[in-house]
């Protein structure tokens, strides 16, 4: 363009944030294709003596390990002939037809092959997908999950942020680390802080698979989520697992009374350079079906950490909504992503979340950054705590339940302070490096880690190592809290330990209320069947959503 006279209009447009985003055209051979690639397999199924002997144009002897697993564990062969005989459009219409009940949709959907499922999705537009989500998500009442992380892995700040997050309404909280060796302390901070903000909070510590299981076994976390599955054999193996090892791991979690879900997402195979020329959504369909076959109750998907890939190609964000919808249609809990940053454009980051937020999912975000973006150790978040009042306004504008509630400053300060003092007490009781009153004060009032001082990191890391080596458990933490006067927090920890005995939260799409009652797709199933049915916001909840503190009240004028 050098030398040519420029349009001022185009110069303005080129300087908009959206021009900093990456966009790329479709590229079939490397799998840079959102959905409906010409190279995707054509749907077919052949069953002999109750076994799938051909699927999507491939005979059994040629099945990859993933295809064999899916064929044997994730397709109801009894219903398959009937389901596969229906056209894609016919099945898509069932999903949006209020006269076809959810269980009937599930019966058909769980008898389809991967290629068929991908094609059903490709026959729907985004609004139809949203209509289907409203009917097909497992649990009737939507909920929300937060990320609670710290650029300094500061245990006091993590505890305070965990408390604030759960007080604001997040029912699950997830952490990860900047420095790996801090991991046990991060789990501890969320365990304590999460219960201070709301009794019944489920917390997790996203790290390497074996470590996650270990801290769960110890009662320092309640669930795990970052147990990844992939859509091509080579990428699955690169991820150092198979459907069998991952299923074995899933059973290990259940055997210890721990909730868990798998994780996958469109774009991961492209990112790892082995998409085998298939569309992202086709490969993701295999991931959802592996999850189904493993008997795992749910899946975190919605591209997650690979969102930049579908975000760059045509129809990519539609494919992300489609992968969430597939999860729901296979009767699995969905933690629907909406998490990682992928764009510089405020319009795009809001629009990307609308299908999940407006239709409602089991976990709309997985998760929403409860800290400023610079403290988000999941590589930055699409939404963060500084967007919270925007989020509250959206709930109020559209009368939707995004899982959050308006809060008062003095109440947040109080729960942050209590969480900081509780973790201070635990550290003192267990002989970990002291937490000073100044640290408690700073973390009570801080926005992010830039507002607080530094810990003695080598000393903290030594103590974190000791926490693991000495075999300290959730029961030990409860005892320490009780001894130091935080009896109510200790009671909360025990209430959560009891969940391991009852196992109710192992069922699909669970969360725990403050009285210990578990709600899930079993006792809160989605009954949506058109206007006037399904999730109905209570008057009390609507009053809460309406009452953003900064709105002018008519009586004050």
């Amino acid at each position: 363009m050098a030398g040519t006279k420029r349009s001022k209009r185009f110069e303005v447009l080129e300087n908009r944030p959206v021009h900093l985003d990456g966009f790329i055209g479709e590229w079939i051979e490397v799998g840079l294709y959102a959905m409906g690639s010409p190279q995707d397999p054509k749907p077919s199924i052949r069953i002999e003596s109750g076994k799938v002997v051909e699927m999507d144009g491939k005979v059994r002897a040629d099945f990859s390990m993933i295809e064999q697993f899916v064929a044997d564990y994730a397709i109801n062969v009894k219903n398959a002939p009937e389901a596969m005989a229906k056209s894609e459009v016919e099945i898509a219409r069932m999903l949006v037809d209020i006269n076809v009940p959810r269980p009937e949709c599930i019966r058909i959907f769980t008898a389809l092959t991967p290629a068929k499922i991908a094609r059903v999705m490709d026959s729907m537009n985004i609004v139809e997908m949203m209509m289907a989500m409203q009917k097909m998500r497992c649990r009737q009442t939507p909920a929300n999950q937060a990320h609670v992380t710290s650029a300094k892995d500061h245990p006091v700040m993590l505890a305070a942020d965990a408390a604030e997050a759960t007080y604001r309404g997040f029912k699950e909280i997830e952490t990860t680390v900047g420095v790996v060796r801090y991991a046990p302390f991060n789990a501890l901070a969320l365990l304590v802080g999460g219960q201070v903000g709301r009794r019944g909070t489920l917390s997790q510590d996203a790290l390497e698979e074996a470590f996650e299981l270990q801290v769960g076994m110890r009662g320092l976390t309640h669930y795990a989520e970052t147990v990844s599955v992939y859509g091509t054999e080579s990428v699955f193996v690169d991820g150092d697992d198979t459907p069998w090892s991952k299923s074995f791991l899933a059973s290990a979690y259940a055997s210890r009374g721990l909730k868990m879900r798998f994780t996958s997402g469109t774009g991961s195979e492209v990112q790892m350079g082995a998409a085998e020329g298939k569309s992202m959504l086709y490969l993701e369909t295999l991931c959802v079906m592996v999850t189904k076959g493993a008997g795992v109750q749910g899946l975190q998907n919605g591209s997650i950490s690979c969102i930049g890939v579908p975000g760059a190609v045509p129809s990519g964000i539609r494919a992300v909504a489609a992968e969430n919808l597939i999860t729901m249609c296979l009767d699995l809990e969905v933690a629907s992503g909406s998490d990682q940053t992928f764009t510089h454009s405020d319009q795009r980051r809001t629009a990307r979340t609308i299908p999940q937020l407006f239709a409602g999912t089991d976990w709309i975000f997985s998760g929403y950054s409860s800290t400023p973006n610079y403290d988000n150790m999941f590589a930055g978040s699409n939404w963060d705590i500084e967007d919270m009042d925007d989020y509250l306004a959206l709930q109020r504008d559209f009368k939707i339940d995004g899982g959050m509630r308006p809060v008062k400053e003095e109440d947040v300060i109080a729960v942050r302070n209590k969480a900081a003092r509780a973790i201070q007490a635990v550290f003192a009781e267990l002989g970990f490096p002291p937490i000073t009153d100044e640290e408690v004060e700073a973390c009570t009032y801080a926005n992010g880690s830039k507002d607080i001082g530094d810990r003695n990191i080598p000393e903290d890391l030594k103590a974190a190592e000791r926490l693991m080596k000495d075999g300290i458990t959730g029961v030990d933490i409860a005892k320490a809290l009780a001894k130091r006067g935080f009896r109510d927090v200790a009671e909360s920890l025990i209430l959560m330990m009891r969940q391991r005995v009852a196992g109710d939260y192992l069922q699909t799409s669970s969360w725990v209320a403050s009285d210990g009652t578990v709600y899930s797709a079993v006792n809160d199933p989605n009954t949506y069947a058109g206007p006037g049915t399904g999730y109905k916001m209570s008057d009390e909840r609507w009053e809460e959503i309406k009452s953003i503190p900064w709105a002018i009240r008519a009586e004050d004028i």
Partner: protein
Amino acid sequence: MAQSNEELIASVVRQLMKELNGGSAPAAASGDAGVSAADYPLGMKRRDLLKSPRGIPFDELTLENVESGKVIFEDFSISADVLNYQGNIAVSAGRTQIALNFARAREMTKIPDERILEMYNSLRPHRSTKDELLAIAGELQDKYGASVCAGFVKEAADVYERRKLLKGDLPSTD
């Protein structure tokens, strides 16, 4: 329901696999106190069925009893029976595969943490020879009576052999 449990779970799993592979409707609650989705959540509706693995009733799993030492960390563990109940609940809510997962989990309650982690690592790709996997299957069967898990590991061994995912199948990185 002590010794008959192995048989019971094996028959439940056969039934589940049959359902998955085109058989008739599963027996929603084969034995096991007839627990179904109507009893859910057990922690609220059927506390009578819940106890720690060494027999402490659910209602006694309290902070006070933790402080007095009557209740210890190990009491906060799920029992094989409760995994059965939860499996029945999953089936009666239409989720067959979850019940299969819980059938494996039920067997794993007998296996120590360390050994489970080791077995998991052995099942990762290119970690074990076929014989090593079959030895694990044998251990699961003989030492822990874990026939569902044993069958699952054997199946993995066959798949790994066919797909060249056994230890010898790649140049060693050691």
